[in-house]
């Protein structure tokens, strides 16, 4: 393969040969001699006192090594958190249950079958109590989750008075809607798993975990057990999807480490799917009211979003901070003179919430875009025209928003226009009219979004968001080591923690281009804290925007040194050396060249090098961008609703996204497609449902249906490219964009279909019963 300019090309993934052959190694595939299995005893109640725990019968069972309760681990303190605001989770329930599935005891046995039997023999005497489950009820403090108000924090930004004044104007139209953005269960197909090995001889811990944040987890283990960072090695091998739920440190990771220390054997735990619904964080869970005002001509003058966000029962890694990510993007793509955002963070007796793909930004986009659509309907304006009229204009960037963010770049109208062109909206509207004449209800939904991602720069997250809880510096930079090995092959070690995003491929594209080394001779290593320089991890669509430039910078430094060596070998000037096709050559005279392998071999021979140059050819780089990045896009859905059954069929889904410069268009398209599917899942199928006692009614994939292939259409997609200046590559990040743009697009399409029936609003998920009920509620049930 030629090595010139892989950047921007659809290079097939390096990751795939192992994964398609079944030889990829996930945590469950790593086996250690003598390993034991852990099973947790979990509370069936959401709120209860724990009167007693009788472990004697379990301990007597053959093959059982230990049963631990809070008494055994209280000395380790609570679970640590990145944002330690509020009440942190005890490692095991400490006399009080605060959510269904909270772990009460940990059983360790020879294998998981035996440990499961023993867990069933642990007798727990509970004292069940009424629970705070409903979010709005919890906000009243009728029942408190802890010994304090359930409202633990409030995020507020913008100008409340300015909004009130604008809403009071007599020349504006005001639309106000209370909407629910429901609780979701992340459901990566790989359940979380952990394998801990405490080696007393070395005094070290090896911890295999399905984590997105290996370094933070290592920091948490070191802090909890009083170890130095160099005593802890966290390894995240292949990780089978994360979507934010593996961006956390969990009690099981601490407890397996503890058990391994106590028992002198490796200890493994893997969650079951049913358990995952309560042992892993959930996402979303907002009840809020959005209010928007515009002049008759369609100039939006004020937007306010106020309400509640469900934190669940404890503050985990980033729990309390999720809503502020919604605050960052509250005004969307619009230049709105008055904006106010106020979200109360509320504890409930449910499993903790935290980052789930998009994390606060899908919620913000949902409320805003539904409001703009409602406004368009009230003004009788074309939804596309209303949006276009209010966009921040390309020449206004960098644009400072009314919630204090600086947006980098965007050509919002151009991206919208590309979507409208692809969709042939006029043709669609004609089709819709024709269908309605035949009694069929087609709907066309169009929305646009902007996200704030590439999470960094460090200074923006200083203080409240720092990693100090894990004993780490307050930093959001990324790192990379690039090493030319003595044989000329190149190793890139990244601090990012991919869960399917293809970093092995994209980072290799960057390194291969910079060094002129064949792509096949570059290998990317990740997910091992002993290998990699300090990195923060993969979340918030940050890897390309923060980790990518670190790879480019490290490779650039290696290239500089290689150029000096080549210059010495070729008797030329270093600035004239170019790297391509496995060769270093003099610009303008390619016959004056040296093979890369030969060059690298020379680099390792001190006596062959010019004076002042040290042997070896590797460098490490850190990168901290000047700003977060602001990808955006325009999405459209076409649906048909059967008013008799409430069934929604998704006929078409179109998306034009802009993530700045693209490193690998194939991978970017895949990220968008997967993201869209998760947004569609929220819009159409998914909801974590609790009964009034706080029992989770949707803990299996039968009750919590995620999209299947048969639910999805093929996607019609395109990209526009508006680079950012926040990093030298111009890349913005694309991991969450699809999810942030899609849920409201589906709802917009369904509401468009139902408009002739008088349905003006509806909450997700749009399962047939809910759609049918919405039609019944407006009292028509079908137009003649």
């Amino acid at each position, binding site marked *: *393969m030629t090595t010139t300019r*892989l950047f921007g*090309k*659809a*290079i*097939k*993934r390096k990751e*795939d*040969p*192992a*994964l*398609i*052959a*079944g*030889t*990829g*190694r*996930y945590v*469950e*595939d790593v*086996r250690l001699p003598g390993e034991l299995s852990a099973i947790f005893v979990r509370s069936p109640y959401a709120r209860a006192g724990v009167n007693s725990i009788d472990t004697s019968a379990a301990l007597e069972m053959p093959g059982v090594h230990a049963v631990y309760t809070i008494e055994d681990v209280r000395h380790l303190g609570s679970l640590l958190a990145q944002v330690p605001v509020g009440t942190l989770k005890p490692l095991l329930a400490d006399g009080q249950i605060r959510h269904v599935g909270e772990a009460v005891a940990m059983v360790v046995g020879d294998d998981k*079958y035996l440990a499961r039997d023993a867990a069933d023999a642990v007798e727990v005497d509970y004292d069940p109590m009424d629970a705070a489950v409903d979010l709005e009820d919890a906000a009243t403090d009728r029942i408190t989750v802890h010994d304090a108000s359930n409202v633990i924090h409030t995020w507020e930004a913008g100008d409340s008075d300015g909004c009130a004044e604008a809403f009071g104007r007599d020349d504006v139209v005001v639309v106000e809607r209370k909407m629910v953005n429901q609780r979701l269960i992340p*459901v*990566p*197909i*790989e*359940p979380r798993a952990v394998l801990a090995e405490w080696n007393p001889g070395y005094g070290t811990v090896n911890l295999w975990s399905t984590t997105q944040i290996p370094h933070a987890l290592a920091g948490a283990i070191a802090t909890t057990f009083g170890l130095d960072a160099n005593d802890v090695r966290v390894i995240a091998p*292949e*990780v*089978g*999807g994360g979507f934010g739920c593996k961006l956390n440190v969990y009690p099981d990771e601490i407890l397996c480490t503890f058990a391994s220390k106590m028992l002198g054997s490796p200890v493994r735990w893997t969650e*079951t*799917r*049913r358990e995952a619904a309560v042992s892993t964080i959930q996402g979303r869970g907002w009840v809020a009211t959005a209010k928007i005002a515009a002049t008759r001509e369609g100039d939006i003058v004020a937007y306010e979003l106020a309400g509640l966000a469900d934190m669940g029962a404890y503050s985990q890694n980033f729990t309390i901070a999720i809503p502020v990510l919604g605050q960052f993007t509250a005004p969307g793509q619009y230049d709105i003179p008055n904006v106010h955002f106020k979200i109360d963070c509320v504890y409930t007796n449910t499993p903790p919430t935290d980052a789930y793909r998009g994390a606060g930004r899908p919620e913000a986009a949902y409320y805003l875009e539904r409001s703009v659509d409602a406004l368009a309907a009230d003004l009788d304006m074309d939804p596309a025209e209303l949006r276009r009229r209010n966009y921040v204009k390309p020449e206004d960037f960098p644009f400072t928003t009314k919630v204090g963010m600086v947006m980098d770049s965007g050509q919002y109208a151009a991206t919208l226009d590309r979507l409208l062109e692809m969709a042939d909206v006029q043709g669609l509207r004609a089709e819709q009219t024709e269908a309605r004449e035949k009694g069929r209800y087609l709907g066309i939904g169009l929305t646009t979004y902007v996200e704030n991602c590439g999470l960094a720069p460090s200074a923006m997250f200083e203080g409240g968001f720092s990693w100090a809880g894990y004993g780490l510096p307050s930093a959001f930079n990324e790192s990379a080591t690039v090493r030319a090995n003595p044989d000329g092959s190149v190793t890139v070690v990244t601090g990012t923690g991919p*869960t*399917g*995003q*293809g970093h092995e491929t994209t980072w290799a594209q960057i390194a291969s281009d910079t060094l002129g080394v064949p792509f096949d001779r570059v290998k990317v290593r990740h997910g091992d804290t002993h290998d990699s320089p300090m990195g923060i991890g993969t979340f918030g669509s940050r890897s390309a925007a923060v980790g990518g430039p670190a790879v480019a910078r490290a490779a650039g430094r290696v290239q500089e040194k290689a150029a000096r060596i080549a210059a010495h070998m070729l008797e030329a000037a270093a600035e004239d050396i170019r790297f391509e096709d496995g060769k270093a050559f003099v610009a303008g005279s390619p016959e004056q060249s040296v093979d890369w392998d030969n060059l690298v071999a020379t680099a390792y021979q001190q006596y062959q090098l010019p004076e002042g140059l040290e042997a070896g050819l590797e460098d490490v780089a850190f990168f901290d961008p000047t700003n977060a990045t602001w990808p955006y896009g325009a999405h459209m859905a076409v649906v048909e609703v059967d008013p008799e059954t409430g069934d929604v069929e998704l006929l078409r889904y179109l998306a034009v996204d802009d993530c700045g410069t693209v490193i690998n*268009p*194939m*991978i970017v*398209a*895949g990220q968008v*497609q*997967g*993201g*869209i*599917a*998760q947004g569609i899942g929220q819009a159409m199928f998914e909801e974590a449902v609790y009964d009034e006692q706080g029992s989770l009614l949707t803990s*299996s*994939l*039968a009750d919590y249906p*995620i999209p*299947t*292939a*048969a639910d*999805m259409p*093929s*996607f019609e997609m395109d990209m526009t490219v508006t680079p950012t200046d926040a990093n030298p590559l111009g890349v913005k990040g694309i991991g969450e964009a*699809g999810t942030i743009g899609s849920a409201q697009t589906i709802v917009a399409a369904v509401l468009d279909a139902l408009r002739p029936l008088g349905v003006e609003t509806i909450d997700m998920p749009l399962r047939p019963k809910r759609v049918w009920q919405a039609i019944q509620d407006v009292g028509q049930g079908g137009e003649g």
Partner: protein
Amino acid sequence: MQVGLTVNGRPVSVEVEPRTLLVHLIRENLHLTGTHVGCETSYCGACTVLVDGTTIKSCTMLAVQAEGAEITTIEGLADDGQLHPVQEGFWERHGLQCGFCTPGMIMSAVGLLADNPDPSEDEIRHGIDGNLCRCTGYHNIVRAIEYAAAKMRGDTPAPAEWEEVPA
């Protein structure tokens, strides 16, 4: 109990507890870890293998039920290092991201194409709707299976949706 079966062409005999699931025999006794466990309840399909040529979710079958059966797992799909067309299709058309559902998804597609060598998009989508993928939105999985179907029929697969880079 002793269970005798043939896995990827190799006869094996394994001592298991009567309640052992087939997937645990495959993964833990035979160390074939390409077959994954995603839900233990037969919804996700990550554990799909071929049992006597039929796709089976191996988390929902007891090992003892496989007595005498011929089982093919993802590890047994490639022929002498030559990728099966479905494996090739997944690589060529970016049909995987995290890769966890992939072995089950590929086995399901192999089963589908054995029954229906020229499936429509709709038939592909319904054919694999017992296998869940959370990463791809299925778009490229469908393209991957279309690619494999064309190859297996001796046709030229449709071009990729991106500019292909020659190897």
